[in-house]
């Protein structure tokens, strides 16, 4: 059963040191096949149904790309509603990592009840924020979000070593010294600072080169996308990176910071501050073509639509997993750079999970011949 595709990772070792890394993705490129020939409204609806793990983001991306292709700009209220939907979905995905995945991976009990409460509250942003605030104060941070956010790196280390919450104990388990699985891949620019010319070039390549959507490159090299790329300037994260490097710990910290700052981001959306420039952007291109970018939990999601006589003629999707799990990209570099020593298997798994592919993945660690 391999319909949605999966990612197979092979880490060959020499003794307790990594030797080679091979990443193989069987994720199918289905956008053209499933969305070609459809009316824009239908394409947007279907994109949300078919790719429903990040369905809100997919639907918003499809609508924005088709609108841009028709030369239409959405009303401010529509943009705000879309950004809110995208943010609520992003927050649930981030919470999943801390409440379910990471504890399970470390043999700790997952907090299914907490994740379930957050999901059930998502229909109403006010209720969602209350639920998130309560989860942050109890399960995740163990203190008010603003108190936690005011901690510097020393304060953060004190927090994780005190281990008052399951999340703090997970961060304490990362240990001291260099981060685990450091990658040198540069960040894909977040939407907020993506240059128009570069966005246009990305859309052109996605349309002209079928292989680009499966193995995208940024300025000729693999790049990392996700919370880490968006949050690098945040002082605590910047301090962590400067002292320990850009590895699994930095990625997980970036997610927790983004989740903790979410109430402020949502308030900006509803107040109309910066609307349409940080989480969702669209570019009308020549030849009835539109590009849309949406920031999701896993990183930047791009949709490119070319319309002809009111129907989708060409459709391309470049999804965040394709950047982060590029055969020579961030995961590959991180695994190849793992420090020699025991527990390579568990560390490799943690690194892959910190990049969080949107499909199942397997890691095989074996001795190189």
């Amino acid at each position, binding site marked *: 059963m391999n319909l949605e595709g999966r990612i197979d990772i092979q880490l060959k070792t020499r003794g307790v040191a990594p030797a080679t890394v091979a990443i193989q993705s069987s994720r199918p490129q289905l956008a053209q096949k499933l969305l070609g020939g459809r009316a824009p409204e239908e394409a947007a609806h279907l994109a949300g149904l*078919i790719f429903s793990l990040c369905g809100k983001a997919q639907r918003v991306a499809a609508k924005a790309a088709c609108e841009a292709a028709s030369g239409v700009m959405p009303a401010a209220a529509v943009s705000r509603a879309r950004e809110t939907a995208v943010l609520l979905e992003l927050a649930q995905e981030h919470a999943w990592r801390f409440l379910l995945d990471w504890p399970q991976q470390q043999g700790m009990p997952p907090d299914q009840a907490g994740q379930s409460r957050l999901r059930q509250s998502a229909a109403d942003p006010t209720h969602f924020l209350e639920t998130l605030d309560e989860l942050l104060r109890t399960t995740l941070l163990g203190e008010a979000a603003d108190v936690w956010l005011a901690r510097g790196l020393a304060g953060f280390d004190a927090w994780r070593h005190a281990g008052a919450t399951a999340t703090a104990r997970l961060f304490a388990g990362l240990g001291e010294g260099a981060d685990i699985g450091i990658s040198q891949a540069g960040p894909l620019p977040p939407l907020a600072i993506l240059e128009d010319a570069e966005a246009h070039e990305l859309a052109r390549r996605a349309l002209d080169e079928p292989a680009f959507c499966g193995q995208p490159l940024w300025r000729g090299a693999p790049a990392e996308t996700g919370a880490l790329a968006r949050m690098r300037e945040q002082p605590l994260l910047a301090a962590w990176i400067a002292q320990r490097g850009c590895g699994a710990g930095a990625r997980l910290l970036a997610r927790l910071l983004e989740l903790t700052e979410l109430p402020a981001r949502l308030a900006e959306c509803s107040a109309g501050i910066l609307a349409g420039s940080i989480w969702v952007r669209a570019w009308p291109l020549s030849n009835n073509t539109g590009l849309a970018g949406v920031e999701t939990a896993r990183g930047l999601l791009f949709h490119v639509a070319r319309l002809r006589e009111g129907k989708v003629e060409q459709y391309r999707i470049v999804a965040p997993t394709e950047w982060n799990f590029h055969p020579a990209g961030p995961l590959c570099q991180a695994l190849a750079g793992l420090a020699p020593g025991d527990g390579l298997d568990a560390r490799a798994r943690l690194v892959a999970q910190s990049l969080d592919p949107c499909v199942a993945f397997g890691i095989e660690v074996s001795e190189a011949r």
Partner: protein
Amino acid sequence: MCLAIPARVVELQENDVAIVDLGGVRKDVSLALVEGVAVGDYVIVHVGYALTLLDPEEAEKTLALMAEAGLMEQAVGA
């Protein structure tokens, strides 16, 4: 992209676990994250959890669309 195939719930078991039918393949999933699931409902499954309860009409439409694109044969054959 995270392709999501609607899975039909065929049996409810103890401890919030259900058996679903996914393109002819049966598997166990946790119902801890959704409420009010009944036999015959369609859900989206991700890493062992049932996530979203789908409108049956939408689910059947999605399955038909995937079949039309030749995906379901692949699923059963794989």
